[in-house]
C-alpha cells in the first residue's frame, strides 16, 4: 500500500493526462467524423469516394502504425511537432472514421418510408430532415458514438508507448519503481480506466433503452 501514498500524484497526473487527451481527441474527431459521414451520404459521388477511401485506409491500419508515422517518420520528413500533439492527431485520424461509420449507420437506419411519407405530405427537404429524419437518426447515433468513445479511451494508452506521459506510461513508471507491488499497481491503473469506460458503457446502454425508436 506504500506506493499508493507515495505516488498518488503520479497516478493523478497520468489520469488527468489521459482524460485531457480523451477530451481533446473527442472534440477534434467528432466534427471530422460528422464531415466524413456527411460526405459519405451526400449525393455527390466524388465526395463519397474520397470519404470512403479515407475511412477504409484508416480503419485497416493499426493504430500503432499511425502513431509510428506521426512520431517517428514525419519528423524525418521535416514535420516536427510536439509528441503530445502528434498523439492527439494520430488518435483523431484513427477515430474519426469510426465516428463517421457510427453516424452513417444511424442515418441509414431510418427507413426510407419515413422520408417518403414526409415528402408526400408536402414537407420540404429542410423540414423532412429537421422534423422526421434527424430526431430518429440522432437517437440511434448516440449509443454507438459512446461506444467509439469507450474504445478511444482504451486507445489513448497507445500514446504511452510513444513517449507521451499518461496513465499507461505512469503504470510503467510505477511498475519499475515498486517491483514487488505490481499486482496492486495493475489493479489500480485498470480501475482508473474502468472509472471512465464503465460509466460510459452504462450511459450508452441506458440511452439505447431510453431513446431507441421501436420498429
Amino acid at each position, binding site marked *: 500500500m506504500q506506493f499508493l501514498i507515495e505516488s498518488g500524484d503520479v497516478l493523478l497526473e497520468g489520469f488527468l493526462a489521459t482524460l485531457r487527451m480523451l477530451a481533446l481527441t473527442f472534440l477534434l474527431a467528432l466534427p471530422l467524423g460528422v464531415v466524413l459521414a456527411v460526405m459519405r451520404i451526400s449525393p455527390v459521388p466524388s465526395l463519397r469516394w474520397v470519404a470512403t477511401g479515407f475511412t477504409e485506409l484508416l480503419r485497416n491500419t493499426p493504430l500503432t502504425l499511425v502513431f509510428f508515422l506521426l512520431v517517428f517518420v514525419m519528423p*524525418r520528413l521535416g514535420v516536427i511537432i510536439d509528441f503530445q500533439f502528434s498523439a492527439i492527431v494520430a488518435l483523431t485520424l484513427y477515430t474519426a472514421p469510426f465516428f463517421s461509420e457510427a453516424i452513417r449507420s444511424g442515418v441509414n437506419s431510418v427507413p426510407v*418510408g419515413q422520408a417518403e411519407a414526409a415528402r408526400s405530405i408536402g414537407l420540404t427537404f429542410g423540414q423532412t430532415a429537421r422534423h422526421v429524419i434527424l430526431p430518429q437518426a440522432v437517437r440511434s447515433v448516440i449509443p454507438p458514438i459512446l461506444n467509439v468513445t469507450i474504445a478511444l479511451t482504451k486507445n489513448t494508452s497507445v500514446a504511452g508507448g510513444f513517449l507521451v506521459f499518461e496513465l499507461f506510461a505512469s503504470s510503467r513508471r510505477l511498475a519499475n519503481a515498486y517491483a514487488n507491488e505490481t499486482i496492486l499497481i495493475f489493479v489500480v491503473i485498470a480501475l482508473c480506466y474502468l472509472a471512465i469506460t464503465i460509466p460510459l458503457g452504462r450511459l450508452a446502454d441506458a440511452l439505447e433503452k431510453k431513446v431507441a425508436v421501436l420498429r
Partner: protein
Amino acid sequence: MTSVLYDVPGPKARRRSLIASIATGLLLAGVLAWVLLTLGGEGLFDYERWDIFQDPLVWSALGGALLVTLQVAVIASVIAVVLGSVFAVLRLSKVALVRVPTTIVLEFFRGMPVLLMMFFILILFATSQYWAVVLGLGLYNGAIIGEALRSGIVALPKGQREAGLALGLTPLKARLLIEFPQAFRSMTPIIVAQLVVLLKDSSLGYIVGLEELVRRQRTLAEFYGFSQYGFSFFVITLGAFLIVNLTLSYIARRLASRTPGGRATRRAARSAIGEMADTTVVPVQRAAERSRHRTESDYTGGSGSIQ
C-alpha cells in the same frame, strides 16, 4: 443511388453534382500532387531510398516478422473464440455464484486497454513477449466475443429453449445443443470482424517489445539508416497490413451477407460489441439497403401501373 435524405437527382442536381465532382477531383489531384512533390522534394522516390528492397534478405526478414504477426493473431484468435464461448455460457448461468464473478471478470477485461493487460502479463508472469501479447489479445477479445455470443443467445426466440426443455433436455444441454450453435452461427460475421481488430491490435506487440512486423521494420530501418530508409520501410509495412486486413474485412463482409439472423440479433450484437469492430455497421446497413431496394422497386412498379 437513393438515400433517406434525398430523391433521385434530376437534371439540375446531376449537373451540380458533376460540377462538385470535378471540383473535388481537382482539389484531390492538387493535394496528391502537392504531397508527392513534397515527398519527391525530400528525395523519397530516389533510387537510393529503395535499393535495399532488391536484397532478398530484407524481404525474408520482413516476411518472418509478418509470420510472427499472423501467428500471434491466429493463436490469440483460437484462445479468444474458445474463451468467449465459455464466458458466454457461464455468464448466462442460473447460478449466481457462477454468473456474478464471470460478469465482473468480463467487465474488467473489456473495460481496460489491451496494452495494459499485455504489459502486466509480461511482468507478472515473467513470460516471453510473445506469450504476453498472445494471452493479452486472447483474454481481451475472449471477453468481447463472449459478450457478443451472450447477446446472440439472448436474442434467440424463447421457443428454441422451450422446445429443448420440452424434449427433456436439461437446461445446460438445451443451451449447449440448441441455443449456442445458433448464436454462434448468427454471430460469425461479428466474430470475424473482431478478429480483424485482433490482428490490428497484434501490432501493440511493438510497444511491449515483441519482434513483430512494426518493430522489425523499425529495427531494419535503423540498421540500414533510418533517415534514408525509415519512410520506405514504413510504406512497405503499411502495405502489408492493408493487404491482410482488407482481405479479412472482405471475408467478414461476405460472411455477413450469407449469415441469416434477425434484426434483433444484429441490434443486440451491435450494442454488445460496441467496439470498433470493422463490420459492425455492415449488417445494419445491409438491412437498410435491402429495405431501400425493396421500396424503390415497389415505388417504380406502383407509379408504372398508375400510368
